[in-house]
């Protein structure tokens, strides 16, 4: 008699559909992949965008006003929200990793709780700082 587990095809190779629809990441996994995605976004394009805005706003009074008006555009506000979220998530998740490096919070239960805290804190900080755009 063949058991159910023996029928499974092994080894299982990861395809993009499998990654997207089959594999369910645990919460710490979500924090991790979002840490990567937010880090990549912060490197490009957000760092370049921030430098552009710093350059223009410090360059002259007109430049400062131009950035002021720039922030009134809906698309810019939306982009800033993503920027702020990426920064806040990367920040909070980073602090969690610093503690994990020190062997603090590595137990499964704690790791799950702190993952939820990081996701919630990232979103809450985004809401708090993002609200100032309006």
């Amino acid at each position: 008699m063949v058991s159910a587990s023996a029928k499974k095809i092994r080894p299982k190779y990861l395809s993009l559909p499998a990654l997207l629809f089959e594999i369910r990441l645990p919460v710490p996994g979500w924090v991790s992949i979002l840490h990567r995605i937010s880090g990549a976004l912060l490197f490009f394009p957000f760092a370049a965008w921030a430098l552009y805005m710093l350059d223009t706003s410090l360059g002259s009074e007109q430049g400062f006003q131009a950035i002021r008006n720039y922030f009134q555009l809906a698309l810019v506000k939306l982009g800033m929200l993503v920027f702020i979220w990426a920064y806040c998530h990367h920040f909070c998740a980073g602090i969690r990793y610093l503690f994990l490096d020190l062997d603090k919070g590595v137990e499964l239960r704690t790791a799950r709780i702190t993952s939820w805290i990081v996701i919630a804190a990232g979103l809450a900080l985004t809401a708090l700082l993002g609200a100032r755009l309006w």
Partner: protein
Amino acid sequence: MKRLVTGARYGLRDWLAQRITAVIMAVYSVIAVGIVLKNQPLTYPVWKDLFAQGWMRVATLLFVASLAWHVWVGVRDILMDYVKPDGLRLTLEVLSLLLIASYLGWTIQILWR
């Protein structure tokens, strides 16, 4: 062990550097956000004076220098995980380094003009 040109440097230094630079950037971020929030609504003279001060220029340069090192370790980790062909990986690594160098140059230009 197979040692690739585009691989890691198999050492503790980058790992540690990424964490130290992270702490430097975190401290700067909290202070910078605090200053901006305290000076609402922000006006051009206040903004200009803030970056005219020596400590702010040095702190900002330290932030971007930390960013340069931190992001290099991170980007290389990502490229090592997802980009397998050596030629493409090396090309993307070089482009990343050029982008990092241009961020540094641009920052110096903004702060000391």
